[in-house]
């Protein structure tokens, strides 16, 4: 009886060493893709960043174009109008604010032209 018990114990112990941890069901549970876990705006932001857009909400300062009537600085917006803050010159101590409407390019008092362009919401 004792030897039978020993056999059973030894056999099972040996088996558990032989089997991989995965087959014994002790493998670590991994989350395959954390992006699939995200939802809502958080997910849209992550997707935009994955697509190479590091400013999906257009929060950063725009780089100015030449600013002539034919080559205005393009301001993206998903609405009919957007407020633009023009830094008229490099050392300006105040920002000049102006409303920019769809289909109506507008000229700041410093002479710089802006134009609203359509953009899809995030």
């Amino acid at each position, binding site marked *: 009886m004792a030897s039978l018990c020993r056999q059973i114990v030894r056999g099972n112990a040996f088996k558990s060493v032989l089997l991989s941890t995965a087959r014994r069901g002790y493998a670590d549970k991994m989350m395959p893709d954390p992006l699939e876990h995200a*939802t809502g705006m*958080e997910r849209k*932001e992550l997707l935009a960043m994955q697509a190479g857009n590091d400013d999906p909400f257009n929060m950063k300062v725009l780089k100015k174009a030449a600013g002539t009537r034919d080559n205005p600085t393009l301001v993206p917006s998903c609405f009919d109008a957007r407020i633009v803050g023009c830094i008229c010159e490099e050392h300006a101590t105040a920002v000049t604010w102006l409303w920019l409407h769809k289909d109506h390019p507008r000229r700041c008092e410093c002479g710089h032209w802006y134009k609203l362009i359509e953009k899809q919401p*995030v």
Partner: protein
Amino acid sequence: MKMNFNHPFHLVDYSPWPLTGAIGVMVLVSGMVKWFHNFNMNLLILGYFIVILTMYQWWRDICREGTYQGKHTILVTKGLRWGMILFIVSEIFFFVSFFWPFFHKKLPPNIESGAMWPPTNITPFNPFQIPLLNTIILISSGVSFTWAHRAIMKNNNSQMTQGLFITIILGIYFTILQAYEYFEAPFTIADKIWGSTFFMATGFRGLHVNIGTLLLKICQTRHLNTHFSSNHLFSLEAAAWYWHFVDVVWLFLYISIYWWGN
């Protein structure tokens, strides 16, 4: 459905919890005064009940907004991070105020406390017994928490569960040891400046360990419901900051009050 907004901010919905929280806190402190004066805890218990109910539901709503509605964009979590940082800074100054009287009385030979420290007839704890064990437990819990954090960063949910479990067990073990030490203490909070400063500082820190353990327990429950991923784990990180802060406070307590002040 047309998306009528294009911004990363979380414009919160109307919520009753700030109001019920304010009422709860008011009832709580009034109840405390009633308890102190009339030895009657009814109002205090009602206050606790309202506050705990508010806390539960408010945090539940935030978990829903963050996890199930995806309202917590990068900018929003940045605000949450700043909130937690400022909260911990305020906690640091809270503990500064408990170390202050200790150093004030310990540093000069004070005539009221017998011109010696520990004051006359005070038998302090041996810092190399339970307090040293507690130090080891807390530092180990920091290690196991880092393990859990690294695991979730690597998308390994199982090891996160294990690491967090060990951290919570160590936190509870610490509390049990400190409670045992309090029962065994040969002095009380009424024993001169020593008892006052010792129990005020270690007592409040013990309370903070309890809060930290509660935060860890909430993180564990949320983790077991798969609320966390490698890019959605701010509340875990906030709990980690808090836990490490409490850990550092213990090191200061151990070095200055238990060891040097012995």
